[in-house]
């Protein structure tokens, strides 16, 4: 049971990581806590579901499409709704994203009803047996894809001009402006990337979990904890913390009882916030908010 518990946590951790990176990045770069991030994940799951059920495209294959669609959503929302508010007060964006979340979830109830849907693939139930431990292929694929995405994003941030501009804006918006970077344009891109990653997480989630308009809500708590655990704005931190969180939850559930998993997670969260607000993994990747 120990080994299986460990593997369960490990397999889920990757998905948690991808679900978190975008949220953490948006928070780190712009100081926006995007409460609609869960809704983006939900939208990603529905897009994947649509593509799978209507066109028969496997969610792992359609993921780039879903990410592109969500990129546009995130970009547009930032441009039209969030940039104007940020000029007044960053904390007001929280109210804005709260409204957006209500809007999007209800929109999807109206569009898709609250019936529960699911993507079933031929390999859904198959698993790799390593000794007594079972490794579900879907979960394994999701975990590996998560790591690939995180690595890709890390390269984009550190090796491309856009990435450098995002990092520069995160560190000092005014200085970036002096260097010829338009912060608001960078914000649009950052929000787009954040939403695209949420879409990817939704895509992965669609292969693992039942889909309903409330799907994002079940993630947002974990996303918060992992963001803080990994250090706000840190890509590598979010991935590492995703694994740590999933492992802790997995072990807490197995050895303390399933109903303790949340209390352990929140206790941990509060402890880290108060004792070590920069996260478990050293310094913040991006600037202080």
């Amino acid at each position, binding site marked *: 049971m120990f080994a299986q518990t460990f593997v369960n946590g490990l397999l889920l951790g990757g998905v948690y990581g991808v679900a978190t990176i975008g949220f953490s990045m948006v928070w780190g770069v712009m100081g926006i806590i995007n409460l609609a991030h869960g809704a983006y994940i939900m939208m990603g799951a529905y897009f994947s579901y649509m593509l799978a059920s209507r066109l028969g495209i496997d969610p792992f294959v359609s993921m780039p499409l879903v990410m592109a669609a969500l990129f546009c959503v995130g970009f547009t929302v930032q441009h039209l709704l969030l940039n104007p508010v940020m000029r007044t007060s960053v904390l007001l964006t929280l109210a804005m994203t709260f409204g957006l979340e209500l809007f999007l979830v209800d929109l999807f109830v109206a569009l898709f009803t609250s019936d*529960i849907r699911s993507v079933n693939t031929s390999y859904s139930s198959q698993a790799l047996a390593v000794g007594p431990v079972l490794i579900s292929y879907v979960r394994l694929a999701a975990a590996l894809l998560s790591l690939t995405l995180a690595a890709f994003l890390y390269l984009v941030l550190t090796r491309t001009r856009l990435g450098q501009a995002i990092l520069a804006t995160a560190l000092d918006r005014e200085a970036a402006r002096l260097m010829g970077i338009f912060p608001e344009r960078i914000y649009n891109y950052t929000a787009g990337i954040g939403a695209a990653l949420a879409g990817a997480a939704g895509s992965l989630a669609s292969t693992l979990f039942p889909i309903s308009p409330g799907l994002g809500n079940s993630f947002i708590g974990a996303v918060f904890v992992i963001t803080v655990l990994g250090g706000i704005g840190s890509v590598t931190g979010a991935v590492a913390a995703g694994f740590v969180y999933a492992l802790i939850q997995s072990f807490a559930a197995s050895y303390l009882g399933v*109903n303790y998993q949340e209390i352990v997670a929140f206790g941990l969260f509060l402890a880290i916030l108060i004792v070590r607000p920069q996260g478990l993994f050293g310094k913040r990747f991006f600037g202080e908010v």
Partner: protein
Amino acid sequence: MAGAWTRRIVLGCLAAIIAAPPLAAQETLKIGAAISLSGNFSREGGLLRDGYELWRERLNAGGGLKAGGKTYKVQIVYYDDESKAQTSAQLTEKLVSDDGASFVFGPYSSGIATATAVISERYRALTLAPMATANSLYARGYKYIFTPSPLADQGLVPILELAKGLTPAPKTVAIVGPDDLFPNITSDGARKRAESLGFTVAYTGKYPKGANDLSAVATQIKSVTPDIILATGYVQDSILLIKSLRELQVSPKLIGLATAVGVQDFRTALGPAAEGVMGVDYWVPTLTWKDPLFDDSAGFAKAFEAKYAKPPTFHAASGAAAGVVLQLAIEKAGTVDPTAVRNTLLSMQGETFYGPFKFDANGVNTLAGLNVSQIIGGQPKVIFPVAVKQADPIYPRTGQ
């Protein structure tokens, strides 16, 4: 109260202008229903409303409700309680004090119903709550709330009774579900019944409501290798649980759910994984109980499909049955005074397509029974009680 009167007069005039020509002679019986049309329970709330609506439409089409020489058209005022107790309470108050509803159809879920029951109790508005079955709600001494459905602690009992007669005899049981009002009661009820039937309860677990991953639960269950896994959860977490069990290749001889496996999206979401899963159902279309409005369950199913173009679920059936119970009681009482109707309900015995009813002083239907269906060949088949079964149970479960 002047404000309310002004509003009533204004609304009354408006209504009169719109509806004046056809009806003038007939009286209207107003029933209030604050149910979840948005939020967590929007889906179940919507299904429940379908049932209430079908009853109203059919009753009115047949001339309406006859009581004491008068004929009443039934009108149901619906509000959306957002799946929130606070809102539901506020709306129930509106229904009984402002809209003048003297009868109430209950909301979905026992938690919300517990918040609204106190209001209808204070106003002595008779409430029928087919989808609020937590035992605690009926143990508070309320006089005006009745449910035609069996209570939550019975939720998994029929599966256990069914399992008792199967061979090879199952021995160990695992019971799992979300930590929530209704599932907890069902879980306790099942544990007690399992022990009294001689099963060994090898595992009981509660996961947080809204948990997004249940692999830990599946891993724990796997380690005790039970013959029977019973789950008290709702549709969504039951789907998740079965997926997780499947991923970890946990294959007990019997999987039994407290939720109906006949629900369409349960089967489509799980596909082949749903095969062989048993679920307890408040209502199945093969039941042979009779009532004057729908005739029997087949009649109800036909009427439902004609109106909504989809097969009915137990939510809708219970809603329509609540309507029929009220109808029978009012007709017998010969009045629409809620207190008189309540007294009639307490003294009468009757049956609807949904099942027989006889209420005790707390409003509990002492004759309510439950049914078990199993997914066989992709379709839900009734396997229990034996009198209405469509198929023999597939046991041990062969599905993967």
